[in-house]
């Protein structure tokens, strides 16, 4: 009994990620500026490609009159939309600060734009997780 709990503790210790300043800075910066989590770790090509893809997707969404979700406690789909949008980090903050992304219901493409913005945020979440994995040495 006691041995098994010791083994479990050892296993957890062995798999635990080393806590380094980079393992905090890279994901935080990557969230704020898409791709920057890779750039700061000298993955320049990957960082540039991630930044170009996520920023372009977000901006295309705005150009298509996509809607930005605001914090809300109502409809579950609105909450999920907000979670997706927030993934874009600095882009979301900038958009909200400038009151962009109000969405034009009159345009059929506006719905595509809304989805582009949400997916840009969700893709940035994946990029942030990847930057973290690089920072802890799980990925090269």
């Amino acid at each position: 009994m006691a041995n098994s709990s010791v083994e479990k503790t050892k296993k957890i210790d062995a798999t635990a990620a080393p806590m380094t300043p980079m393992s905090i800075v890279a994901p935080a910066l990557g969230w704020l500026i898409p791709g920057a989590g890779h750039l700061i770790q000298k993955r320049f090509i990957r960082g540039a490609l991630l930044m170009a893809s996520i920023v372009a997707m977000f901006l295309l969404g705005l150009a298509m009159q996509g809607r930005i979700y605001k914090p809300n406690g109502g409809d579950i789909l609105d909450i999920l939309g907000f979670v997706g949008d927030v993934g874009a980090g600095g882009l979301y903050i900038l958009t909200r600060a400038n009151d962009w992304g109000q969405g034009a219901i009159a345009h059929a493409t506006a719905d595509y734009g809304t989805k582009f913005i949400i997916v840009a945020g969700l893709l940035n979440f994946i990029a942030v997780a990847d930057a973290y994995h690089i920072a802890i040495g799980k990925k090269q």
Partner: protein
Amino acid sequence: MNLELSHFSAAILFAVFASVVFGITQRNTSRDMIRYGLYCFAMFVGGVIVAGWVMWILRR
């Protein structure tokens, strides 16, 4: 600015950007990243075409 893309061109752009991110984040070596990115792009575009034909058949 108001950009009005067709459904297909919006889907292609979506596929390009998502495939780049998937390729970079889901594989370890450069070669695997390119291969997986191309695979994802093919699946996205193929899925759009298949879904389009399925909807066309259902509509008839």
